């Protein structure tokens, strides 16, 4: 099992969500987050050094069984990219997932995903 965490641009949320649904990946958690990516350089206005604001992003968390990892990742990459390519399209992190439990049934492991 893996936990896929994608940080994407807010204006691509609908694209990604719909693409995931098309690919039959329907169990996702979405949250609104902010942060700094590559656009971290400090600007200088009238002699003042200005740290840029936190940039709003969307975070999507998806727990998947091994065989779905590639498909999920490909779908996100495909649907989250801007055309033309732009800085700020986001990142995907994949981490090993030790355990997964469905609270209602107490099922554990791959079946609970």
């Amino acid at each position, binding site marked *: 099992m893996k936990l896929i965490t994608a940080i994407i641009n*807010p*204006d*691509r949320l*609908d694209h990604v969500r719909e693409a995931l649904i098309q690919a039959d990946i329907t169990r996702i958690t*979405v949250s*609104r987050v902010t942060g700094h990516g590559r656009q971290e350089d400090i600007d200088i206005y009238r002699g003042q050094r200005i740290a840029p604001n936190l940039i709003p992003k*969307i975070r999507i968390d998806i727990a998947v069984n091994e065989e779905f990892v590639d498909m999920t990742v490909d779908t996100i990459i495909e649907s989250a990219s801007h055309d033309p390519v732009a800085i700020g399209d986001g990142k995907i992190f994949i981490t090993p997932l030790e355990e997964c439990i469905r609270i209602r049934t107490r099922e554990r492991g791959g079946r609970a995903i």
Partner: protein
Amino acid sequence: MRKRIAAALLVLPLLVQAHSTAWAAPEPYTDSGTTSWMLTSTALVLLMIPGLAMFYGGLVRTKNVIGTMMHSFGAMVIIGVLWPMLGYALSFGPGVLGGFVGWNPDYFMLQGIDESILPSHIPEYVFAMFQGKFAIITPALIAGAFAERVNFRGYAVFIALWSIIVYSPICHWVWAPDGFLFNLGAAGAIDFAGGTVVHISSGVTALVAALYLGSRRGYPRNVMHPNNLVMTLTGAGLLWVGWFGFNAGSAIASDLATARALTVTQVSAAAGAFTWMVIEMLQHGKATSLGVASGILAGLVAITPAAGVVQPSGAFALGALASMVCYTAILVKNKLGYDDSLDAFGVHGVGGIVGALALVFFVRPGWMAEAAVKAGGSWTVWQQLGVQAAAVGITIVYASVVSLILLVLIEKTIGLRISENDEMSGLDHSMHGEHGYGLINLN
């Protein structure tokens, strides 16, 4: 009230003359009481635009909140420029082109009214600005029908042309002293504050636009939750408050007629909201805040044409009737499946038609007696209903046909419906490069 405007505008040329020949006619004077109320009303009607922005803005999805509010503010800006330039002359100038529309070169940029005081004892500037607010809110109402899916540039051009080609002629027919609907039948078609001019014209256009532009992506399969009902309720409240200027100001006076208009406005709004609330309680077991807001609007819309002629009991009936019919209209819309996103037709179009027609059954006897004298003997409710139906019918046909032509024209040239990609990204990002909220959760 309309009589007053009529008298006011007919005497206007004389007034100008009176000024040039200093000795003629009694000097028109400004009545400070009337003028202060009319100035207040003018400001109250303008308050309805941010009210509408909040009402509509709260109902769309998070990604479209700025785009939707900008539809209202866009009207405030664009019609705000157009009205003093052209709109007032086209609406309230003497009839040209066989009475199709008004025109008075002196009203261009309002340059001819600098010294003008109307016989209702208010400066003409106040009247022109008061009317200008009506011209602003009318196209802004349409935006509810095609929320979340139009190009801002196309929208801007659409409301500018619509205001000139649709609003001004209808306004001229119904409210100018030489307008043909103003003089239809014994005592004219009854439209106190804009049932036909504002609500039916915008509501019908909204329906045509919703049908022509098509549904939002995913409608009705996907649920589209309002992003902020708190803002919607605040907006509905502001609309209610502003409506006192809209209706009670339309008396162009500060007297008994004003008091009557204000009273029936209050009664009808409350009756409308109450009825909607009861219907929802019976149907779903819960009264929703959006239901109450819709009921308030239905009641206010229905009383708008009638505020000068009905008594409080009539206002109760009109408010309640409007809520019942509008509620049904929205059920029918859901059955038919067209996407009048924020029910601009369902509330303003339907409510306006209900008010403009049903008001004849509640007209105060004094008004009917006066009409009978003018008609030379008798004047029945049914004859007045015929006049009302004619005014409503003409408004519906004219607004829908011309709006459809405008829509097709703009869609084929500038483009009105946005691309699928832009629609998915949301208007805020794709049209304005902004987002409405900081860290508030998504919906």
